[in-house]
């Protein structure tokens, strides 16, 4: 066997090992992903040992989702093997994600707090109701909105007269 042939054969077997390793890596990652999916589903079953607290369940599910997304990004999207450009594209976009969500909190997320100031009277009348312990507040707000609208109506009328 010539030296060239030997090195060629060695190269081929090296490639074979590489392929084998890659396949094994990707298979391991997908098995991990399926296990992680089951870990999210776990919160829904009776086997979940950490009580009925929804906050804990949600925290767990989001942590699992982040773990799964990281696995997909790092291995399936090859970011593990990419150069530093990856940070330029992914980090600002991730910041924007958080900022976009936080930007919605004051005017959309908080509209049912602060005396339902973001709700129109019609919406308050026909909206779903607060849980029992806060229901009194809801009715008070409807009355408040009624009074406010009645006052506004009077103002409108007086403006029309003028």
């Amino acid at each position, binding site marked *: 066997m010539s030296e060239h042939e030997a090195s060629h054969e060695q190269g081929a077997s090296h*490639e074979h090992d590489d*392929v084998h390793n*890659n*396949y094994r890596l*990707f*298979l391991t*990652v*997908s098995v991990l*992903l*399926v296990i992680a*999916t*089951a870990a*999210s*589903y776990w*919160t*829904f079953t009776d086997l979940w040992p950490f009580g009925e607290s*929804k906050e804990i*369940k*949600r925290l767990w*599910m*989001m942590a*699992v*989702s982040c773990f*799964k*997304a990281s696995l*997909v*990004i790092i291995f*399936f*999207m*090859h970011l593990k093997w*990419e*150069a530093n*450009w990856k940070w330029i*594209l*992914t980090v*600002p*976009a*991730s910041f*924007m*994600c*958080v900022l*976009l*969500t936080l930007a*919605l*909190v004051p005017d*959309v*997320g*908080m*509209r*049912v*707090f602060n005396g339902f100031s973001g709700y129109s009277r019609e919406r308050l009348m*026909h*909206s*779903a*109701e*607060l849980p*029992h312990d806060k229901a009194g507040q*809801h009715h008070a707000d409807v009355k408040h909105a009624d009074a406010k609208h009645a006052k506004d109506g009077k103002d409108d009328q007086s403006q029309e007269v003028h």
Partner: protein
Amino acid sequence: MSDSHGSKFEYHPGLPLGLGKTFVWLFLSTEIMFFAGLIGTYIVLRFGSIAWPSPHDVHLAEHWGAINTAVLIASSLTVVLSLEAAKRNRTAEAKGWMLITFICGCVFMGVKGYEYSAKFEHGLYPQYPHGRIYEKADLLYSAAVRKRLNELKVDLGKSLASHSEAQEEINKSKEGSEKKTDLTKKQQQQLAKLKVAIGEDESRLAVVDEIQKKYLDPAELMVRDHPGDPQGRILLTQLAHAIYPPADLHAQPRMPEAQEQLEKDPAYEPGPLPGNVQVVPQKSPFRLVSHDDAAGDDHHASVHEGSEAAAHAGHAHGLNDEHPWLKLPMVIPGGNMWASTYFLLTGFHAIHVIVGLIAFFILMLYVLDKKRAGVIENVGLYWHFVDIVWIFLFPMLYLF
């Protein structure tokens, strides 16, 4: 600027990757923000809402979501394997993996379509005219129920009249003929069919009348005659729960503490009921949907058969499930906002899946060798992103 200047400077040629990959990543970074906007809005709306339906109230089955997640993960794996095979010029293998990816995508869409159809069947649409979701059991809701019952009465009345007319015509032809047993076999079959149809129309009309007399009339009369009495609200809630019982309440005890306390209160007296109507003798809105009560209630005995299992495994059965033709308006607190966000999020995700499927289909028309590895990688990147979006959507929509 002359060419000689150019040779003095040595610039790095931008990012150390191909143009295709660069633009796929740029596109993905805009996509990240697009879905961040959607998911962020969902989170903010969901936690800023007064009420939000439980997954079972809106016919969401967790296992379908979990299965779809596994299918997408499998497809992500196969697209990577397809790329690895193409890099090594194993074209047949690459195409095989690509085909499996395509099939996985189709399975995902199939499950999604099945899920959508289950929601549409139950009138869970984001808005009118198809949507039948109401936020609370008030007079606006009872008016909508009455409107639907009146529509049904008119339709069933018309259907009954036309069937009776047809039956009469056949009978007339029978009288006109010399031999009274002269009816052809076809006519006899028609008569039998008409008899069944008339029976069905009549039984449906009876159901409509029963709902009106048992639930709707007492509630509206109570509110009209005793506007300050909580009994009116209770009867309205009973109407809503009979039509579409909240899944979670099945697990509640028969007599909630609040009701017990209310009855212990010496000042509490249920208002007098209107004299001319029969009222379901129940005080608590919770009792109507509880399993124990249903057993003692002939009308609901069949409605609630197997509902205990349903309460654990999914949606609880009400009149709308017992008689699907009723299509009565339903009370699902927070249901309208849920429908808007659910269909928007899953709809946009499904559009992305379809685009991916088209890309895979086109790729499969070519020989997937080393030259195509770059394109496969780019399409794969897009597909993995679609997978990541679903990884977040699954717990948020199905398990939260």
